[in-house]
């Protein structure tokens, strides 16, 4: 996994609540057996005027000029600014894969759906929860200022605004540690082989039917 430490990134505002994983990456693209290549189909139904198919070259497709990510000022954005309950719906990890493949490294929202939030950390994508008022301010400033960028520092758990003011955010210690170091948590768990085996031995006595 790519480590996440610090980021200075352009912000793109997606001003709608309850953005679901079907919207982030529609179902037809879930047929892929790969982990990469989902970026061109991120927000496919909002981003293009036609219906996308897997394996299609998206470069010639008609873009929806109304959709925020198609506006020239947000090209190259690495931080997605969103509203509450972002990533609700299915558990598809294709959603964070698509966001990351597109170029996003962090998402700021007042709240995230649990599974999506969890999936982000497995992929070097940092979901940042800020209070609704802070998110409101970021939306206003992003819209008012072309080229609006933020500095995210995971070690310090801060989002620093262009004027130097900062918001702090919470993150679990273990997730932070893995993300800062780009660690594969399977490897970490496998350092506890003996503990897992000891649990299984005890559990096999208590509940043998689980091991039949």
């Amino acid at each position, binding site marked *: 996994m790519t480590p996440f430490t610090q980021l200075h990134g352009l912000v793109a505002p997606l001003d709608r609540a309850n953005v679901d994983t079907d*919207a982030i990456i529609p179902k037809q693209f*879930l047929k892929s057996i790969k982990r990469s290549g989902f970026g061109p189909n991120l927000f496919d139904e909002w981003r293009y005027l036609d219906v996308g198919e897997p394996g299609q070259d998206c470069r010639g497709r008609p873009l929806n000029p109304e959709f925020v990510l198609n506006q020239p000022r947000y090209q190259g954005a690495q931080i997605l600014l969103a509203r509450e309950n972002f990533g609700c719906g299915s558990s598809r990890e294709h959603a964070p894969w698509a966001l990351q493949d597109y170029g996003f490294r962090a998402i700021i929202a007042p*709240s995230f759906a649990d599974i999506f939030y969890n999936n982000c950390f497995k992929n070097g994508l940092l979901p940042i929860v800020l209070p609704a008022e802070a998110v409101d301010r970021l939306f206003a400033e992003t819209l008012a200022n072309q080229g609006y960028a933020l500095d995210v520092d995971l070690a310090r758990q801060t989002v620093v605004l262009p004027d130097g003011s900062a918001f702090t955010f919470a993150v679990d210690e273990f997730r932070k540690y893995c993300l800062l170091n780009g660690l594969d948590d399977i490897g970490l*768990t496998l350092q506890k082989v003996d503990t897992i085996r000891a649990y299984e031995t005890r559990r096999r006595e208590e509940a043998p039917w689980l091991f039949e």
Partner: protein
Amino acid sequence: MARARLPHRDLAYVEGRRGAGFLVYNVSLQDKQAVYEMAGLTLYDKLWRAHVVDEAKDGATLLYIDRHLVHEVTSPQAFEGLRLAGRKPWRAKSAIAVPDHNVPTTRRAEGIADPVSRLQVETLDRNCADFGIEEFTMEDVRQGIVHVIGPEEGLTLPGMTVVCGDSHTSTHGAFGALAFGIGTSEVEHVLATQCLVAKKSKSMRITVDGTLGQGVTAKDVALAIIGRIGTAGGTGFAIEFAGSAIRALSLEGRMTLCNMAIEAGARAGMVAVDDKTIDYVKGRPYAPQGATWDKAVAWWRTLCSDSDARFDAEIALRAEDILPQVTWGTSPEMVATVDGRVPDPASAPSAVKRQDWERALHYMGLAAGTPIQQIAVDKVFIGSCTNSRIEDLRAAAAVVKGRRKAAGVKLAMVVPGSGLVKRQAEQEGLDRVFVDAGFEWREPGCSMCLAMNADRLEAGERCASTSNRNFEGRQGAGGRTHLVSPAMAAAAAIAGHFVDVRHF
């Protein structure tokens, strides 16, 4: 026992949702710490504790996973990860795989026409063969939707931790199990280690007391709850459904309810074990037998919340207040009672919601104030992991029997949850009831719940659907989904528009 202090914001959360017909009660601020330290255990506490392998200081827990259900969409990258790292499954026997999302529901013998879908299913077959995982292949009569076959085969048992790379894994909580959906990285993690790194959720109890009216089902209870607490109302919580109306539900009904817990934002939903749970499990192919069965039952009987258990949030509904539900928008929380109307965005509780409602009405092609029963449908879908079990098909067939699909309805399709549900329904003659009424009787799979196979809505088509998500494009790009119970979907197919199944 020591319990986390009740966070102040949770009180605000619960109290902020006090509403007509819904009692909301809570632990008072004065009770807090002293009472919490004395309180008994919730069902969720018991399930969690039984599976803790290791716990870090920050609460990150290594949780043991008893059952891993695998399907074709969220597993290929996980198996590839194992291959690249040279890892093997920790306990291959704990996993069971089935293709369900991509499978065709017609002409099954001809295989999958779409080469991309076919490759995904073939990849599952190959991965299962390579890694020694049992699979119910597309040709197997036991094949079906992963959340239908788990319980049906006795692969899901009370007290288990059950995971699957699918958010509707919450379904299995109906058995007094801790069941939740995971992403593909976690699928790989469970395959490799039999564990997950997880953090305990807060606990919420939703109590539904009383008796559900005629024609009111578990689906209506689920939608009424989501309408009340919102699609993020359960975020960060594990929900236990309790109360006399829940105890009166069959296991099929409880599965429907727990299935929709994720639509309220909760990764896990659960119901305490009772005689119905044990009766359902007994004799299933993968259920324990003999002396082991007795030992298992003895433990399963302890799987309920202690009478003095305390929850971080409590919500109560009266069963009598719940009417048949129909969603009108693009989120399951956008729901009305069948006697209601499409709401006016001007009455939305906030500016953000007003914008959401306006966008939803535009997408759905609906005008504010339209009576729900005047909304005409183009297609009807009876199926999905929410509502494709035998009880669902019986309820739909009871409405359909002796009637005909309305001329304006282009397609009414019934997709059983598994090959065994299909066989059972055919033995009961339900297939004839549907076919005689002009419905299509299909092969099992996820089908038009998410339209990964050939079953889908065309742009602008409106569907009465027994599935779980009415998101934009969910059932096909531009398609318009209204979530309802099986009986309500069947009635809409006959009438050509939504009708109140209680008077139909």
